């Protein structure tokens, strides 16, 4: 289908530079082989696999409760949501109905995870465009979410708070108060984000109309999450296939039709607001009850195939388990959002400048361990 890079060079005197695996703006160990003509990007070839750990293969030899701890290490910024996906799948297979308390707490934790992930996106996106101050503002506010996680889960980023049948332990007595304090604080801070970055003329000039992704391409490449919704692809799993407590809250699916870098950014900022709305509705009515269902010491899934999808901060995460009735899965497959989102990078960044490539790459919000697994 496409010419190799060597053929392109021969024809058009383009030159090739290697962005990564060690590069400030590839956010990890992604290697982009970029062929340039002057400053104009002609072709981008992502080379992945630098943090491939074989998580899917490893899962075949460990038990279900152990798998949860591996999923943390995929998209480490939505660790909680990844856990939830596996737990929901296992619960679905065993036909367990988790208590309401579990559902509500899971939803709140998921939304907090989404907020902190988008905060980090905001921080690094600003940094990619040269506004270094954004990085510190974003991380400052993210700390507050991580503190809440630390108190309740015992860990800040790689939380591992879910287990099949419920939660590892109950929420900390301070949890509700701290979450409410955070929401109150962050509602005041969000306009500051807009002042510093969203409304900035240079920022808008840099991002508007850059890296347009059409609705057709978004669907055919399977671009989900905020990147897909910026192109008008209504793909929010929380809305279309509600899990946990999403069927009892009201929230808007943030949709734009432009599909450029600016709107991919805007979707995430708006989603932070929506997430706060969701938490607002739930935080005061966490039902009383057990925080987990009593499970058998060894969890064995009945023979069959199970699929569960959830909405992580980056898009749709699918967990596909084939069980042969044993305590380990026969085969497990994760449909990770970043892998599909990365695949459009070449399509949308062609014929833009190299500075735009950095902006587009940043706006796709890639987490490399999620691509490689």
């Amino acid at each position, binding site marked *: 289908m496409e010419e190799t890079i060597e053929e392109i060079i021969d024809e058009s005197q383009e030159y090739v*530079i290697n962005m990564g695996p060690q590069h400030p703006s590839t956010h990890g160990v992604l290697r982009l082989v970029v062929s340039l003509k002057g400053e104009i990007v002609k072709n981008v070839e992502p080379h992945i696999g630098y943090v491939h750990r074989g998580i899917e293969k490893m899962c075949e030899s460990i038990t279900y409760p152990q798998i949860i701890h591996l999923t943390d290490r995929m998209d480490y910024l939505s660790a909680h949501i990844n856990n939830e996906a596996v737990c929901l799948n296992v619960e679905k297979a065993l036909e367990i109905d988790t208590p309401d308390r579990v559902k509500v707490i899971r939803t709140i934790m998921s939304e907090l995870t989404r907020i902190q992930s988008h905060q980090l996106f905001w921080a690094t996106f600003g940094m990619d465009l*040269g*506004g*270094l101050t954004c990085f510190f503002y974003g991380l400052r506010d993210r700390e507050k979410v991580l503190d809440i996680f630390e108190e309740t889960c015992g860990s800040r980023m790689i939380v591992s708070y879910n287990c099949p049948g419920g939660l590892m332990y109950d929420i900390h007595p301070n949890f509700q108060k701290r979450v409410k304090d955070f929401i109150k604080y962050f509602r005041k801070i969000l306009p500051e984000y807009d002042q510093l970055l969203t409304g900035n003329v240079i920022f808008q000039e840099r991002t508007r109309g850059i890296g347009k992704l059409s609705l057709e391409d978004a669907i055919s490449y399977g671009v989900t999450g905020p990147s897909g919704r910026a192109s008008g692809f209504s793909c929010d799993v929380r809305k279309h296939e509600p899990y946990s407590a999403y069927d009892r809250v009201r929230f808007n699916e943030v949709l734009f039709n432009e599909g450029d870098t600016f709107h991919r950014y805007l979707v995430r900022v708006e989603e932070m607001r929506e997430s706060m709305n969701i938490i607002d509705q739930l935080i005061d009515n966490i039902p009383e009850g057990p925080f987990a269902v009593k499970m058998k010491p060894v969890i064995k899934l009945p023979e069959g195939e199970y699929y569960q999808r959830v909405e992580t901060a980056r898009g749709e995460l699918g967990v596909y388990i084939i069980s042969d009735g044993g305590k380990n899965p026969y085969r497990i497959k994760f449909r990770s959002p970043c892998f599909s989102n990365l695949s459009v990078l070449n399509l949308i960044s062609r014929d833009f400048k*190299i*500075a735009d490539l950095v902006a587009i790459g940043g706006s796709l919000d890639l987490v490399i361990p999620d691509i490689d697994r």
Partner: protein
Amino acid sequence: MYDFTPLTKWIDASLHNAMSPFWTTIVEMLIVGVLILLFYALIGLFLVYAERKVCAFMQNRLGPNRVGPFGMFQTIADLIKLLFVELVPIKNADKFLFNLAPFIVITASFMAIAAIPFAKGLHAIDLNIGVFYVIAVSAMGVIGVLLAGWSSNNKYSLIGAMRSGAQIVSYELSVGLSLITIVVLAGSMQLSEIVEAQSTGWFIFKGHIPAFIAFVIFLISSTAETNRGPFDLAEAESELTAGYHTEYSGIKFAFFFLAEYMNMFIVASIAATIFLGGWMPFHVGHWDGFNGVMDFIPPFIWYIVKTFFVVFLMMWFKWTFPRLRIDQLLTLEWKYLLPINLVNVLVMAFIVLMGWHF
């Protein structure tokens, strides 16, 4: 008023008494050279510290606070480290040009500082074409940047150097034209005379709106000329890792680093000298008491305060704005700043001709 002319005259006379005119010149050159070099190094170190503190202040951090009181010796510690750190040899680099480039960059900024009047009678050389000299000398640095990018044999460096070349050559025009606006008003290119002409009021207040426009344009274009954010495309960390000085290490990197800060200081002092009255104190109309108090503050303090005010403005830009793209950068210069500037010079000439300025 504090005047340094008697002091310099006295030193000159006593040296003449002690030795032959030839040796007097040699010794005077040595004294001036050493003093300026010292000043250069101290200001450079202080600016790096100031930038880190200002940046920390903008970013809700503390900044350096471990080495010495308030971390003041942090930059000195860094400098010592840079002096002793290994110079990584680069394969396939053009050795001669690679080693030459940092010296060109630092010499250009070093030469520019010679023409700046720090106080009455306190400048290394008072050229009658001072403004012209400063513009010419500060433009020399781009040669070093281009050489560095070319000789490093690194594509990132080359992209950075080419961007820098396009950028500095373009913005040189705006810097020159905005200074010419004030030269038209002052009627002289000699920096000391320009300062003297501001004894009745700084040019930014005296020169109507054109002077203010020229000041704003000068701020923008000099920020671009010194390769500082939001115009730091030549080193664009997130795109080109470090641009033209990616391959440099140790003291050679320190040269680029120091030159960047000194260039910022130099353009700030030019802004202070030309627009904000240099070492002239702030005077208000007929408030004699107030003016007397202002006169009491030494001119060197006035000069430093004004310069650091402009330096602070430039740091503020850098830590607030995202970076421009290369085509937007050139559009800004050629489509907006340059036409505005040309009209501005004409308006200023008209105002001076009609005698409408204050």
